């Protein structure tokens, strides 16, 4: 039992830090915007892709960097410390491993390099209006017609679909007795005729999610991943991968740092808020929770690198991780006090809006509103608790 970094690992950390300092796009680090454009995300993605670091957990044969678990941890940590944009998970984290595991050679050869390069922007077509926690009840239908599928249905909560070139999509290819059966995993070109993307504006005023309407969309049968009717297994495989990344420890550490900076700047009757006993206590409680989660994640990673797990225990990372993400935005909102009230316009509202209050207050409440989603998506925290109850506690 040992938690010291080796000299090699420390050197690696230095290399990552220097690379980010030298290569992170200037226009991003100087930005104060609340929303980022497609091009913003891609600019950083391409830098990492060029370096070969865009997909830390991919095997080397597919273009991954061949890092150890510890190196991946260090890389995430440094990116968070530098407050870089994230690499969007839809292609790299979610679809990539699915393709490696289930796709045929032609599919791998075609799609994986385009994910790495950022040429294809992917979105996830899972949820439907009637199928949220109960994903298996999905209704979007794909009927075989010659060497094509004809897809009809209605997806919802599709994150950043407005930018997407492709959607990986769960569709029903057969009606079976059990709803889990008859589901297939299909790759759909978002430029296909019959696809309509309608924005959903969320309570923070942002446009992240969408409805996607599919009307007689024709998809080549070769876009099926795995076998017809085996989509449920793929869906579960993918959701398992989604959960492990969701703890967000490094990002939360960064957010706590910001919270502390704000608390140093805000005053309570002339004294810094961070000296206020009550508020300091809230920060400490959050920090301790986060420290515990960090070690829980490290334990999970260590078990993983020893070939065990991640099992249902990774649901802990989702639950605790999102609770902490929500809490830190809540405390930042509290910290900025009355200046949590002004509403900050989003990216497309034009620039001639006069902002009041200190810079750090801008969007504090909206960020808090936005983070409410984290306990809902990727399987609600109730569903995660059901998973632990069933698969870990045997209840």
């Amino acid at each position, binding site marked *: 039992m040992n938690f010291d970094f080796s000299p090699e690992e420390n050197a690696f950390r230095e290399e990552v830090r220097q690379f980010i300092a030298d290569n992170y796009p200037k226009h991003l680090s100087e930005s104060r915007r609340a929303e980022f454009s497609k091009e913003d995300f891609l600019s950083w993605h391409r830098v990492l892709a060029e370096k070969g670091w865009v997909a830390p957990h991919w095997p080397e044969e597919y273009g991954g960097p061949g890092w150890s678990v510890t190196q991946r941890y260090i890389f995430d940590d440094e990116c968070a410390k530098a407050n870089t944009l994230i690499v969007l998970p839809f292609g790299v984290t979610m679809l990539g491993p699915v393709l490696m595991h289930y796709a045929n050679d032609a599919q791998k050869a075609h799609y994986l390099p385009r994910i790495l390069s950022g040429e294809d922007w992917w979105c996830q077509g899972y*949820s439907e209006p*009637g*199928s*949220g*926690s*109960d994903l298996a*009840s999905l209704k979007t239908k794909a009927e075989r017609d010659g060497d094509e599928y004809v897809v009809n249905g209605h997806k*919802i*909560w599709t994150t950043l679909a407005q930018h997407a070139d492709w959607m990986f999509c769960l569709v029903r290819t057969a009606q079976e007795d059990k709803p889990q059966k008859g589901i297939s995993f299909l790759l759909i070109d978002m430029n296909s005729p019959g696809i309509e993307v309608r924005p*959903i*504006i*969320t*309570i923070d*005023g942002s446009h992240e*999610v969408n409805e996607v309407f599919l009307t007689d969309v024709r998809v080549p049968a070769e876009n099926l991943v795995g076998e017809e009717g085996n989509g449920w297994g793929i869906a579960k495989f993918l959701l398992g991968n989604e959960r492990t990344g969701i703890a967000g420890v490094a990002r939360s550490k960064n957010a706590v740092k910001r919270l502390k900076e704000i608390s140093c700047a*805000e*005053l*309570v*009757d*002339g004294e810094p*808020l961070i000296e206020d006993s*009550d*508020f300091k206590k809230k920060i400490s409680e959050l920090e301790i929770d986060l420290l515990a989660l960090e070690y829980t994640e490290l334990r999970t990673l260590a078990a993983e690198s020893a070939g065990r797990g991640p099992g249902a225990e990774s649901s802990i990372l989702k639950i605790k991780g999102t609770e902490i993400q929500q809490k830190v935005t809540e405390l930042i*909102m*509290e910290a900025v*006090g*009355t*200046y*949590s*009230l*002004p*509403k900050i316009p989003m990216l497309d509202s034009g620039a001639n*809006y*006069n902002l*009041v*209050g*200190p810079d750090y207050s801008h969007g504090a*409440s*909206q960020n*808090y*509103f936005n983070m*409410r*989603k984290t*306990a*809902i*998506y990727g399987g*609600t925290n*109730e569903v995660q*608790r059901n998973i632990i109850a069933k698969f870990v506690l045997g209840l």
Partner: protein
Amino acid sequence: MDFDFTEEQTLLRNMVQSFVQDNYDFDSRMAIARSETGMSRDNWSQFAELGLLAAPFDESLGGLGGGAIDTMIITEEFGKGLVTEPFLPTVVLCGGLLERHASDAQKDAHLPPLIGGEKIWALAYSEPKSRFNPANVQTTAKQDGDGFVLNGLKSVVNGGPWADYLIVSARTSGEGWQQEGISLFIVDKSADGVAAQDYETIDGGRAADISFENVKLGADALIGSLDNGLPLLEEALDYGIAALCGESIGGMHKAHQATVEYCKTRNQFGVAIGSFQALQHRMVDMFMEYEQSVSLTYMVNMHVGSDAASRARAASAAKVQIGKAGRYIGQSAVHLHGGMGMSEELNVGHYFKRLTAIDAQLGSIDYHLKRFASSEAA
């Protein structure tokens, strides 16, 4: 000991309820909140016609004599409708302050147009680093002949963009967060040197940061006596809290109700999600927090007229309760609606946002917990 409403109070509630039902359905509300101005002058005139702007005032001043209880009834129904019009700043905060402490001349000049719906008021007391404490005043009013010269900046003035008149707190002596040396002034917002930066707030309301640069005030602008404005201001804020509690329980009620209804009709895994025990218990906890909030809302409105110590204790207790309950109910309502709760198109997210905003108005949970702790039970 009597927790029943009088017949007149019940009639008032029915009237406000009807108004909200007829004129303030969710779509109408969103249209008002998203409009350029963010309020409806038509509604404001109707409030005046219906006597809502007169409700709390003494009959001798042209009011209907309803006091805090009638105010609470109105704000509770307004809370259900997410009403954006500036009832709280105009009638409760400024109107009440004028009624209790203005000179007869000031009352004669200002209360009739306020009650008549012709003039809108806002209370400009908070400052960029004042953090809820009304004694933290940097704005100054220097004596200048008979009158005063006002300089400073007031932040996040609720209803500020619509106001014709402001009541402004300023230091006439002392410094920092000293209790003494604060005076209250009536300021015409159109006066020279007054500049407002208007903006929308997170709950669909409107506020302004308002700066004062060498604004000249007459001697008749002073409310009450020089240097003794803080107790008047604290009292006004406590009345404001009592009214805000009413609005809050109205919002909680709707958010909870919408959640229960949603969970009864939303099916997953072949059953209504409201049949899951963990969700049921969370809705029960929301309900209990709502009931506890109703209790302290009644309590504060029954006690807001007592001595300063009891009033402060009651108001701070109630504000802590509605702050916590509002947060819990708002968060839970969004969460139990799942993805739908995140959508701007559904009402539940707007109750959540309004309940969130209420905590940052008139002092947060933390501020009032400390104020409660430093008070002593009568």
